[in-house]
């Protein structure tokens, strides 16, 4: 899945949006990965991510999800995800992961040059890189930029354009705070790649007509 590849936004807002995920490969390092994925999540948790979860069990914003239980129940799986809002914290997470030497494939979605620098500072060279070349085809069917910025934070597309519009309206009417609206959106995203902190800032901006 290219779940986190096409996150939209100006570099100014993307600098607060880094998704780190552990990934396993079937037949290579997926089998027996449960304890390593649990350790990955614990390392991330120590650095206070704004979201964390996995595609199978959900993320911390969903009803009845307790992070300790989610980690405890983590079995051999394809991966786990956490979101951070600044490069310094990301750097520390990467350094901890290098030290832990879990043997899982670790990927980061975010500003590529910044992540590359982060790798160098941590004493490693990035292995592979992937760019988005944007949207092609029937682009006339796409909504306004701010809707896309929020929608693409859940690459699986679980936060619908209409739901974002409705939540913006409720925020404008003061029936929801930007923070509460952002948390509701995060609940839609199954794997935990959605960044509610960035969504809150965007909602606040849109509320004031920005």
């Amino acid at each position, binding site marked *: 899945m290219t779940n986190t590849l096409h996150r939209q936004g100006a570099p100014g807002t993307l600098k607060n949006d880094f998704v780190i995920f552990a990934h396993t490969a079937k037949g290579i390092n997926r089998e027996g990965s449960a304890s390593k994925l649990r350790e990955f999540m614990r390392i991330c948790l120590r650095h206070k991510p704004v979201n964390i979860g996995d595609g199978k069990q959900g993320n911390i914003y969903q009803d009845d999800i307790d992070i300790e239980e989610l980690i405890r129940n983590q079995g051999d799986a394809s991966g786990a995800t956490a979101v951070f809002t600044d490069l310094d914290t990301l750097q520390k997470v990467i350094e901890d992961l290098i030290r832990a030497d879990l043997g899982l494939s670790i990927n980061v979605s975010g500003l*590529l040059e910044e992540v590359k620098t982060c790798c160098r500072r941590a004493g490693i060279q990035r292995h592979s890189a992937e760019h*988005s070349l944007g949207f092609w085809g029937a682009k006339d069917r796409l909504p306004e930029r701010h809707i896309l910025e929020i929608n693409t934070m859940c690459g699986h597309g679980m936060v619908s354009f209409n739901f974002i519009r409705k939540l913006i309206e409720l925020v404008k009417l003061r029936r929801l705070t930007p923070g509460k609206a952002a948390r509701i959106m995060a*609940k839609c995203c199954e*794997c935990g790649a959605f960044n509610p902190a960035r969504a809150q800032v965007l909602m606040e901006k849109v509320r004031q007509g920005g």
Partner: protein
Amino acid sequence: MEIDKEKCVGCGNCHPVCTMGVIYLDADGKSVVNQEECVECSTCYRVLRNEGSLPSFLRAIRKVLAAFRLGYVAEVDVCPTGALTPPKLQWPRSLRAMFSDPSTVHPGTGVLGRGTDEIKSNDVTGRLREGEAGFVVELGRPGIGARFRDIEKVAMALARLQPHFERENPVTQLMEDVGTGKVRKDVLDEKVLSAIIELKTTLDRIPEFLRALEKIQAEVDTVISVGVASRCLADGTAPHEEWVTKAGCKLSSNGKTNLGLGRPLFKEP
């Protein structure tokens, strides 16, 4: 998705949550799903908490409130009566959930949702090697959805360039013939939230593939998200950047980075 008409009170909460925008109020004041357009992502079912209220009680309240020109407002993330009912899906409709619901494991790949590996495990699989470029061509996203008829058009246009379609990819597994990109007939009318064509070629052929995409994009009624990847050089440079730029395409400032911490590390022969 189906909606139990005995339970639905027509609050409309499920309408905006629907990723495809295909739930609406019927003449009887109850919500209904346009089955032709629903992609079985189950977002409505997962996100809207079942409050377990009694339908008859809620209907009575709504009538009383309406008499005073007042409205009934449920919290945005609930289905007051638990009317949303996931159906048991049969082939080929079950394909919709496999591609649209990220909590569904695709039987052919063992990965959740429309799952592809791209560069995410490249450090241990060596799927993309030096001199190679990987393409991920995703139809339907963001937020529009795609029919396999359109997915086939793009796959066939790319197949003419004789790429290596990724075997462990759900779209490749639906191709009758990877040489032509033709998709099996019984799924062509199925609609999914998105589907990813995943292939690799050599770096120098990137411009050719981008030209083919440039040409075919006008023939599909959906959006296409395009991604390009490669194995980095020893100094950390991503060699595909040069070829994408030569082709006149703009690279995003953000993207995905594999840090190379997977073990056992793949060693090129």
